[in-house]
């Protein structure tokens, strides 16, 4: 290959991502754009249209006919009870709290139970799960430390989870998203009958990740059913049984556990931490699921364990076991609280590349090289003596390991590894007792 071709290939490899800050700046500008556009519409466009129409008598006649037909079609399509999307948004904006039933259907992975959700505001909600124990979740994200309480009324047991440094934050609320739809980008779907009531449908697809369908009661101009499809994640959320401005005592949103409950308290620490060296036992104490350490392997020359903030930006703490092999490869094994199949629903769709005799499965990662770069860079910053950031290689790769007990770990290596070594490494993982 000619050097010029190589240089062109290198140049084409350049890839940067726009930062969240730029996204915000541009989206803010876009959000403020319609007012300017509307002003221009009334000032410039309308006179042009009319002057063009009036220039030619034939155009006049044709336009008049078109207007009559259009009016006729509109009258046929929408009777007196027809609702414009803007009216739905206006109605929604006049209500501050709502209750609904939420069902989630996932094509793969663990299912989420159906629940009645009471949204008190964007930071507090109560979820009544339709399971055999009638489990209740109270979520409060108002303070610096968010709190979730899970109450099991049958067994009188409560789990309180304190998410240190997680709040204050707002709920990613679906009704809030629906309120942002614009009239012009919201498609009418016609009508359907539910329990004898005629509902009017609207569809809005802001991007390839979200596809909303909203069925509205023309009388109240409020949603009766909402369906949100996440095509890429293979998941659909159904919301119905809406009740706006519900009556419920504010104590129903209290995170205080009733006196007769047995309480288990969990702490999840999202506060920023400096990377530090820790022991395998520290991983065990930091995780609510099984923690693993690496056993002795003849080709591992150095091993250290560090705790750091997830370089993927989740705010969570992750635990890295860094290994240096005799062939000068650097390997990072990552464990974290969110490393489970319930959250990593994409994992079973990946390709299994190796299955060890003890039943651990190694999967590909959809962005393995990038994932590896983040964790190797994180290690290099914490322990420059172990890995020089300049030496992060293009051979780097990632494998996700699902252990026989369902725990998920990842292995990222700076250079290629043979299947034999990968298998030895996966087999050497030992539960920290």
């Amino acid at each position, binding site marked *: *290959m000619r*050097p*010029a071709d*190589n*240089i*062109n*290939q*290198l*140049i*084409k*490899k*350049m*890839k*940067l*991502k*726009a*930062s969240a*800050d*730029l*996204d915000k*700046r*541009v*989206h803010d*500008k*876009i*959000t403020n*754009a*319609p007012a*300017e*556009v*509307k002003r*221009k*519409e009334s000032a*410039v*466009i309308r006179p042009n249209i009319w002057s063009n129409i009036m220039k030619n008598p034939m155009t006049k006649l044709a336009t008049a006919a078109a207007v009559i037909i259009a009016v006729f079609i509109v009258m046929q399509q929408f009777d007196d009870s027809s609702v414009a999307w803007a009216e739905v948004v206006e109605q929604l904006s006049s209500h501050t709290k709502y209750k609904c039933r939420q069902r989630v259907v996932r094509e793969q992975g663990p299912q989420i139970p159906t629940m009645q959700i009471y949204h008190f505001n964007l930071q507090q909600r109560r979820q009544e799960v339709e399971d055999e124990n009638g489990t209740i979740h109270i979520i409060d994200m108002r303070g610096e430390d968010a709190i979730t309480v899970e109450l099991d009324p049958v067994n009188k047991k409560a789990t309180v989870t304190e998410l240190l440094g997680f709040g204050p934050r707002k709920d990613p609320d679906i009704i809030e998203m629906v309120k942002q739809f*614009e009239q*012009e*980008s919201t498609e009418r779907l016609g009508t359907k009958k539910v329990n004898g009531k005629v509902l009017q449908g609207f569809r809005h697809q*802001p*991007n390839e990740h979200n596809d909303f369908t909203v069925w509205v009661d023309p009388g109240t101009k409020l949603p009766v059913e909402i369906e949100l499809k996440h095509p890429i994640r293979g998941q659909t959320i159904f919301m119905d049984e809406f009740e706006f401005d519900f009556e419920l005592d504010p104590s129903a949103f209290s995170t205080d556990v009733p006196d007769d409950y047995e309480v288990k308290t969990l702490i999840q620490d999202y506060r920023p931490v400096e990377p530090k060296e820790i022991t395998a036992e520290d991983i065990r104490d930091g995780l609510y699921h099984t923690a693993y350490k690496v056993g002795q392997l003849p080709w591992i020359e150095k091993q250290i364990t560090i705790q750091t903030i997830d370089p993927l930006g989740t705010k969570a703490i992750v635990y890295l076991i860094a290994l240096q092999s005799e062939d000068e490869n650097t390997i990072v094994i990552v464990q974290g609280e969110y490393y489970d199949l319930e959250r990593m629903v994409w994992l079973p769709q990946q390709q299994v590349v190796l299955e060890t005799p003890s039943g651990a499965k190694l999967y590909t990662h959809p962005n393995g090289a990038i994932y590896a*770069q983040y964790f190797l*860079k994180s290690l290099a910053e914490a322990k420059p003596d172990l890995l020089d*950031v*300049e030496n*992060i*290689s*293009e051979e780097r790769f990632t494998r996700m390991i699902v252990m026989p007990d369902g725990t998920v770990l990842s292995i990222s290596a700076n250079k290629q590894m043979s299947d034999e070594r990968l298998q030895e490494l996966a087999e050497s993982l030992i539960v920290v007792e």
Partner: protein
Amino acid sequence: MLEDKLLIWKFNRGSREALRGIYERYKDDLVTLAAALLTDKNLAEDVVHDVFVSFIESSRKFRLTGSLKSYLATCVANNARNRIKAIQRRYSVALDDANPAAADSSNPEHRAIFGENLSRLSYALEQLPYEQREVLILHSYSGMNFRKIAAQQKVSINTVQGRYRYAMDKLRSMLNGEVRK
């Protein structure tokens, strides 16, 4: 192309969703282009921001004659060149000496803006005179032909081809075999 035309059609009718669609579709490519030209990601994001602000203001009067990608790339290149000229005025030195690359080449973070694996390329790009770098990046990264670049830079096509050749020669000698794979 057809999707771009549909987006522009909606954009000209004041659709915020179309604007968002255009931004989401091209933002990463434009930030990369601007960063390659200016060798500074923060400056690059400012350029892309300014280009989109102007683009938003052009609603209803915007007419797309070629490809939208090429139009936005041209806007980014023009804006980047104006910034370079502003720096030139500020420091009253020649264009090629005033490019941020010269000032930033001591900063390893700037050299690594495209990742560690492309750090040598980033460093080599920084060493090129701005006009040569612009031709090289617009042609090799954005796929713009020499005729368009010539029209944009208001120089002859021969000058553009010459700049491209010089840029390639310099890069080749600087990378000195690093690109052999």
